């Protein structure tokens, strides 16, 4: 009996980009046996920056492929045991490889065939190329960032992207969800084709901007700022502050030492506070600038004020909370040695998931 959630599932992944690989990574971490099918020279992600210090090992590939096995060849030849096949080959190249929708359905009628492309496999833009920055801007969030303090400091600059591969990873999450949903229905429906677009997934997570359009508001990064709170600079770093509820405002006032300005009746309700947000922020910023992040967060959270430290990656790695949660696991990264690798944001029945290992060496099965 499998002791991981997806312990009975076999998945083949053919990935050039982040979206398909992230889908495979999620399924692998949940316990599926995931095989990365690579061309002889290795999948393109192996050559994608950033590289681990002093090596030619891609940190991106190592993270995304952790826990997977690797084989080389045409993916069509490695699907006999797979239940799910995740592929991001551009549409125009699929037929030559015999991995287009019709060919796969004919050869493997029980297979869940998941296509993951920047703009999907259907529709006028299905042939378009899309890197992360293009997808972020095609799905709306690109135009809406930055906000708050950054827009105050740099009003004339262009929009700025989210770190890394945010939108492509949303495509990966959607692909994993589509794959598991189709697998769930497989006893009734058999194999099928799942068409995922990273643009769609990016738009799904940004859906509120579309809703607000229906409500009559066209969002813009300059206006999409909290009237007070947001990114606040302390003596030794930044904190995030967001109070939405009255009791949180009350806690904030207490945290600030119940200053006289906060007792103004005009600030008693949220509408009044929004109106005078910039003025409130001046007070908060002056108060925070001479205090330490840890003190502000600890004393604020004691008063149920939503406050968080802006952690650097190194701080997340050293964080006692995440150590307690088992967010990282030491795995062997070929070419770089043992390293702490993020496992998963999921716990099942009170325990973290585990990685089956680090990323695979190329042609691992012949090593």
């Amino acid at each position: 009996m499998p002791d991981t959630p997806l312990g009975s599932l076999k998945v083949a992944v053919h990935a050039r980009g982040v979206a398909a690989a992230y889908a495979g990574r999620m399924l692998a971490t949940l316990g599926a046996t995931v095989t990365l099918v690579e061309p002889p020279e290795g999948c393109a992600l192996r050559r994608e920056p950033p590289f681990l210090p002093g090596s030619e090992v891609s940190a991106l590939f190592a993270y995304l492929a952790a826990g997977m096995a690797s084989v080389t060849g045409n993916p069509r030849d490695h699907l006999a045991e797979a239940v799910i096949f995740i592929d991001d080959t551009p549409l125009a190249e699929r037929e030559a490889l015999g991995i287009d929708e019709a060919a796969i359905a004919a050869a493997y009628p029980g297979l869940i065939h998941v296509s993951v492309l920047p703009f999907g496999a259907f529709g006028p833009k299905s042939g378009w190329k899309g890197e992360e920055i293009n997808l972020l801007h095609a799905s709306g969030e690109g135009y809406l960032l930055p906000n708050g303090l950054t827009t105050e400091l740099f009003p004339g600059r262009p929009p700025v992207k989210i770190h890394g591969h945010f939108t492509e990873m949303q495509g990966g999450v959607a692909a994993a969800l589509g794959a598991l949903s189709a697998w769930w229905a497989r006893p009734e429906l058999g194999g099928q084709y799942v068409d995922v677009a990273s643009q769609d997934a990016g738009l799904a997570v940004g859906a509120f901007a579309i809703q607000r359009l229906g409500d009559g508001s066209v969002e813009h990064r300059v206006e999409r700022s909290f009237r007070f709170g947001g990114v606040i600079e302390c003596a030794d770093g930044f904190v995030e502050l967001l109070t939405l509820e009255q009791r949180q405002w009350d806690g904030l006032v207490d945290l600030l030492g119940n200053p006289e300005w906060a007792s103004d009746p005009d600030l008693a309700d949220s509408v009044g506070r929004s109106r005078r947000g910039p003025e409130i922020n001046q007070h908060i910023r002056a108060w925070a600038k001479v205090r330490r992040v840890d003190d502000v967060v600890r004393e604020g959270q004691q008063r149920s004020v939503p406050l968080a430290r802006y952690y650097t990656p190194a701080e997340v790695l050293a964080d006692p909370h995440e150590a307690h949660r088992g967010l990282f696991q030491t795995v062997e990264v070929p070419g770089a040695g043992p390293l702490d690798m993020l496992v998963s944001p999921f716990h099942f029945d009170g325990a973290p998931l585990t990685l089956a290992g680090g990323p695979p060496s190329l042609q691992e099965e012949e090593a």
Partner: protein
Amino acid sequence: MKPLHGIRIADFTVHNAGPFATHLLSQLGAEVIKIESAMRPDAFRKPHPVYGREGPATFDQVASTKLSVRINLKKAEGVALAKRLVAVSDIAAESFRAGVLDRLGLGYAALRDVKRDIVLLSVSSCGQDGPDSHFAGYAPLFGAWGALSDLTGFADGPPVEMRHVMDHTVGMHSAVAVMAALAQRRMTGLGAHVDVAAREVASALAGEALLLAAAGGSPRRMGNLAEGLSPHGVYPAKGEDRWLSIAVREDTERAALAALIGGEPDEQAISAWSRARDANEAAETLQAAGIAAHASWTTPEIAADPHLRTRHTIVEVAEPDGTHRAAVGVPMRLSKGAEIGIDRGTPRLGEHEDYVYGELLGMTKGERKALEESEVIY
């Protein structure tokens, strides 16, 4: 038949992250019963000030396709009623602070007592255990804790807040975890308690940077730069606040770009070329030349886009008052089964109690009336 037809979810989630998870599952066919009360409606059902505007800014999208009932969980009879609902459900979902569900008498052990193989999804800012598990949080805090926000922004500026996308990616991740738990239940007959920590989702979206830091590197925010891609960035286009994203990976693409703009494609030359062109037309020109490009789209452009309409990513939803609005559907297309997506608009509070209490739980009108009078169904 949608893929999750026959799956029922007792949905105690509030705000954005948890509700988005059940919203996705509802579009995939699960019957999602949203549980609120007049005393404690979902905070996002009520108007609240966002960015200085008062409005029901965020509720409609994530509540659509769900059923709505009222249960007052402050009363023991309310907790008992909630358990009756869980007893006929496959999944229970909640997004209270860690420990709240236990204090209500609805923790995992209590729910397992009424439904042996229940899958409980708990979505919280910091997870169900650990020294910070009691911390309150919203989307911008998740990104801050998880390092994703520290890595986002201009190199010479402060970190940048994540907004609703952070909530919703937590929800979409959670939906995957729930599907894995359902698969496990099918194999083993056992339920599970799925614990999703929102700050760890933010970290997972920067997993390569965390690995870099673990190896001694120092990843930092770097604006619109992307290692390995050049040129890469957001360039001005014709018109006020119009922008064009361009990303070049291969030498052949670089050569094509040079040919298009008539010279070496440095930042200045690209900007001079793009500034004279409509963003969408320029993107089409670049794509035709094999270069990844897209206009920086505003929401009206997205809502009207033929590609997204063709894919049913953008759909029209009818609200109970007869109005229509654009909404975003579940981001996938399945080749078999009934079409997935949003079936209905926002439910009124308690709109589906005849079905849920009458048909599903078999309660008599007298029983329901008594519970209403005692403010249990309230």
